């Protein structure tokens, strides 16, 4: 789980960025002072607005209702909401404030509140608050300005939340990619000091490097004497792939172990020779079965039928 602080760094939330945002959203000191001045208005209407917000919107929608499974969860959410809304009228929008808003984004992302719910809810909230505001102050220049300041801080907020959504999404994408990478090089211990890496799917340069790295790591980790690379599942073996395999074999030799290449089909053998790739330095076998026999004999063992 990425911490709030890591997100702050990832998103580049610094004093400089803060100043740039204030300028871009035209959120001035005047606006913040005006918001602070509206604090008593907000406190007066907060309970009522949040109640209406839940009754009219969140609980009426079958999908958003699912977020509130029980009364306790609902109560917790409403308390947080009230605090959250009051913070809009704190008259401060500093880095601390940004961090707070960012946490809201990550929480929503984690529990699965989609951006549409977040944005829709905010639009509704803005409507509720302007109704109350015009009710209290009438349509005056003052109330118009107040609404404008509220809009600014709300959009300032939404930008942070949306960016956090995206960052958290990219984060989970990166985690999935790491998982796939790991799955694509499953080095298996077949027997004492004999490893097997079945290669399946296309091998590009990035994957070849990763194959080499995990092969070398596992050979040293397991102190393996032989590693079998089975390429039966690799659709195309061209010069590039062959060179990667040769490099891996060389590196494995430097560690003091051997490589056995298996799963070489007639087509692959034909291409290799036609391409002029020299695999003479490698141990090669047509099938995994023969490869295993060779690997065992290299470790001084053999498979024999049971006697008697």
């Amino acid at each position, binding site marked *: 789980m990425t911490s709030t602080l890591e997100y702050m760094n990832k998103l580049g939330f610094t004093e400089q960025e803060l100043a740039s945002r204030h300028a871009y959203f035209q959120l001035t000191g005047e606006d913040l002072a005006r918001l602070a001045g509206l604090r008593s208005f907000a406190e007066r209407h907060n309970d009522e607005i949040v109640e209406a917000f839940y009754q009219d919107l969140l609980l009426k929608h079958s999908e958003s209702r699912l977020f509130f499974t029980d009364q306790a969860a609902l109560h917790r959410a409403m308390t947080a909401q009230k605090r959250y809304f009051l913070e809009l009228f704190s008259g401060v929008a500093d880095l601390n404030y940004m961090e707070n808003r960012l946490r809201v984004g990550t929480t929503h992302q984690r529990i699965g509140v989609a951006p549409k719910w977040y944005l829709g809810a905010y639009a509704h909230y803005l409507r509720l608050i302007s109704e109350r505001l015009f009710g209290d102050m009438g349509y005056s220049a003052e109330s118009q300005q107040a609404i404008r300041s509220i809009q600014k801080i709300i959009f300032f907020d939404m930008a942070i939340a949306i960016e956090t959504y995206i960052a958290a999404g990219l984060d989970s994408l990166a985690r999935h990619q790491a998982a796939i990478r790991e799955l694509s090089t499953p080095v298996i211990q077949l027997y004492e000091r004999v490893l097997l890496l079945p290669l399946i799917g296309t091998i590009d340069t990035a994957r070849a*490097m990763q194959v080499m790295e995990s092969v070398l790591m596992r050979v040293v980790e397991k102190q393996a004497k032989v590693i079998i690379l089975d390429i039966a599942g690799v659709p195309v073996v061209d010069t590039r792939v062959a060179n990667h395999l040769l490099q891996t074999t060389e590196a494995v030799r*430097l560690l*003091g172990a051997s490589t056995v290449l298996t799963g070489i089909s007639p087509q692959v053998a034909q291409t290799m020779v036609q391409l002029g790739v020299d695999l003479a330095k490698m141990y090669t076998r047509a099938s995994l079965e023969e490869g295993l026999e060779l690997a065992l004999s290299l470790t001084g063992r053999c498979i024999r039928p049971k006697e008697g």
Partner: protein
Amino acid sequence: MQSGQIPILRIGTTLLASIQVELRDTSAQAFQQDVLKAIEKSRSRGLIIDITGLDMVDTFVARILTDTGRMAKLMGTETVLVGMRPEVAATLVRMGFSMQGVYTALNVDEGLALLAQLQSSQARD
């Protein structure tokens, strides 16, 4: 680095040098000198160079190590390089330097076994 900084131990007819410090150009050359002198003095048949402690081996050092093996061979001693780290192996191979002609083993134990095997096959010839 002066010569004599990497201890070379003699065990029977085998020499064992374990490199625990980063090898620089001059220290690598000094090491080569020391090894060859030790071979001359001890009439050894095998040499094990343990590089488990090396995080980085550039092509210059790799060449010195390879050459040392060839020189030792001329003096009647087979060399086995042991304990190379995965990162080092990957880097050397990517740079196109795969230390042809050098025997390798996973660790000192394996290196000793390989030397014994080499010597017995030589004795048969």
